[in-house]
């Protein structure tokens, strides 16, 4: 319940921030008018859009709209923002899920291999890969993957959302960071658990190494990884401007970017708010999952 209240407060703060930030980026009127438009045209259109009203009036209308579940209509697309968002969102969601799965699974495998062969060649390779994944820019990775797998090898489509094969390159590009982060976290978490007394005791008692790794170490190393994964999943849900632009993917990240470029207040506000809601809900769900995994943790009191 406390988390829910915190979520509502966060949403109000977010809505206010989004309202202010959207207006800082400029005015849509100049982008909407033709080149021959006069000052009078600009004034008329500003009035028509209600942008000549004081900010507190605009804010009040915006918040009243939110209370009624209306985030407005896009200026650029001439469609309700909610409809647009949920037209684009499935595309981002699909890509995000594939990305998440690739990133988490490969990250897990890499992290575990790295932890179980600490100091070895495999560990060093995995750590180098993690550093590259964390530091290489997505646009570079994307273009390189496109060049190799689409242009040179002709194995995969270079861009656009056209069937299962088209997910591979954008998902790989997008998952690099997630993969690297997960691998590093799994490795460090596993190493710290494998160094604890209960794991040592298990080994002394003759428990097989696979049971030590899978049952005793991994289970206890999961909590921080799940928190990280939850945050990353939430992060993925608002799309990636870079990946979606490079791969011509009609997702939410690109939609928000188009809104910013066109100074489309309602579009930017609406999309950010919906994404914000999702992130808050996911955060709450992660807290609940965290609690289920580790019964010592209580939502209100932390570790008892």
């Amino acid at each position, binding site marked *: 319940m406390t988390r829910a209240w915190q979520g509502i407060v966060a949403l109000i703060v977010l809505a206010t921030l989004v309202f202010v930030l959207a207006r800082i980026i400029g005015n849509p009127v100049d982008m909407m008018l033709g080149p021959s438009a006069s000052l009078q045209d600009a004034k008329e259109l500003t009035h028509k859009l209600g942008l000549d009203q004081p900010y507190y009036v605009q804010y009040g209308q915006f918040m009243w709209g939110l209370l009624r579940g209306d985030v407005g209509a896009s200026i650029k697309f001439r469609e309700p923002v909610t409809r647009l968002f949920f037209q684009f969102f499935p595309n981002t969601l699909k890509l995000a899920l594939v990305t998440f799965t690739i990133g988490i699974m490969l990250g897990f495998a890499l992290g575990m291999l790295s932890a179980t062969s600490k100091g070895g060649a495999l560990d060093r390779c995995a750590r180098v890969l993690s550093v590259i994944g964390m530091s290489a820019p997505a646009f570079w990775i994307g273009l390189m993957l*496109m060049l190799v797998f689409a242009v040179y090898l002709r194995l995969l489509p270079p861009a*656009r959302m056209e069937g299962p094969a088209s997910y591979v390159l954008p998902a790989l590009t997008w998952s690099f960071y997630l993969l690297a982060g997960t691998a590093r976290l799994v490795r460090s978490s596993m190493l710290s658990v494998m160094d604890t007394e209960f794991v040592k005791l298990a080994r002394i008692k003759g428990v097989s190494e696979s049971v030590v790794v899978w049952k005793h170490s991994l289970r206890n190393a999961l909590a921080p990884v799940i928190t990280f994964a939850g945050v990353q999943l939430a992060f993925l849900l608002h799309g990636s401007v870079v990946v979606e632009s490079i791969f011509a993917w009609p997702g939410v990240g690109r939609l928000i970017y188009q809104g910013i470029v066109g100074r489309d207040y309602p579009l930017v506000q609406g999309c950010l708010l919906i994404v914000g809601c999702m992130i808050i809900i996911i955060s709450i769900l992660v807290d609940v999952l965290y609690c289920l995994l580790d019964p010592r943790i209580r939502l209100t009191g932390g570790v008892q």
Partner: protein
Amino acid sequence: MRRWGLLVLLVLLPALAFASPTAEKPSGAEKVLRVAIDDFAGEYLNPIEGSATSRHILRHMYDNVFDVLKSWEIAPDGLSWILRMRDDVIFHDGTKATAKDLKFSFEQVVAPSSALGGEFKKMLGDQVKAELVDDSTLRLYTKGPQPFLRAMCWSESVYLVPKDYIEKNGIESFRQHPIGTGPFMFVQKVAGDYMEFKAVPAKHWKVNPGFDRLFVYLVPEEGTRIAMLQTGKVDQIGLGMESALELEKKGLTIAQGNLVEGSLYFMHPSHPLAQSSPLHDIRVRQALSLAVNRKEIIDTVFQGRGEWELLTPPENAWYSDAIVAMGPDRVKYWQDWAKQNWRYDPEEARRLIKEAGYGDGFDLEWWSAPDQSASWAQDIAPIVAGYWEKVGARVKIINVDTATWKSRRHSTKSKDLIGKVGGADCFIVGEYAIGPIPGLNRWTTKDGSWDLLVGSPQQAAYDKLWADGMSSMDAARTGQIMDQILGIMLPSWTVVPIIAAPEFLAFGPRIKSPPYAKLPYKQPCDLYAYWQYSGVEK
């Protein structure tokens, strides 16, 4: 158990992703053209709500209101036009277009929902006054003599829209299922992804489309467009100069489109707030023009594919007619003026700067913005700045987006640009290679979209000349007015033309003979007009 549940969930998640693949599947028997462009601009295909959506797209669905006329004439007093429609103009729902639709289209232009600009309100009034003479003839009354109505309809892309269809189905339905009279009809659009059109089933009065179906994909990244072209996913892309030359070496077909002219603007140099700016001094502005080696830019950056001597007015603008009306002598005078004054003369530039008191150098701020008409607009900023630095200017380039630039161009909206360099703004060069008037138009009047001459004693005279010129029924008088306009604007060194260079298209191997590829570059071609004519090999 929970662990396995989690694992199953992880495996199922990507499977869900493929549950509803999106893909448009053209029939194998059709001739299909697939084009990738970088921006749809506005995403709505309703031309009466705004001009933001790319004209490259709209022009295939709609016909200009003057395109569908078999004749037109302006009354001797200039207060009305008689517009006679062709008999074979058919909307995509099969209904015949009549003068009622023509009247309705003009009404939409001045409607509150229109974003086409107040020039039409000045011409037609807030309410269109028109009478239907018969089914195919309309008498349109104007607010005062408006001899340039036709030119305005062309330059602002006023399209014929269906009265009955919109009134019966409503504007929302028209947004979702727009119909026009152009050679291609709307099939579907996936916002932010692609648009699909098909050729009209019957013979179109204007053209016979060279293919059956057209897909226009939104692919913002140039690198991605090139990869799609190389892998055969699209047949045609727009691309920048450097990439075009590289692909040409690899054997791909490259075509050059219209020349696009780029000009820089010394923003409001006569404004009281610009007095501390070096640009307030006309000698500095002139020197900065003399410091730029335009020919070198064309020869090196554009490998000779462009113009620098004879910059020409934008396509279809009314002042093209006005320039013709000046007569050949005056046109030649201004052409010679341009050759003389837009020359490269760094010594003279240094002398003028020294004379203006800036011999020790000076700081300049340049707000550089991209332009939809020319991908190279922002790229030439550092090159020009390099020339300026050789004559003592220390240039700070601030790259801004189009919206930032547009929202600050008028001195009453923002003081940010006063006394600074702005642009480049680019215009498609018209087919009339007759005179030098870069960026010179009524938008620069005081109530236009940017008031370059604000604070100048000549602003009032300049504004009056434009007003008079727009309503002049006497061609000789129009020519004189244009001559006077040029006499104010060009020697003010407020607008500095740099170059006119082409945009490029690359074609994939499926297209055997792009119609414009073999044309000499100086012959301007419309980048996208050939969609209607090209024979695309399957």
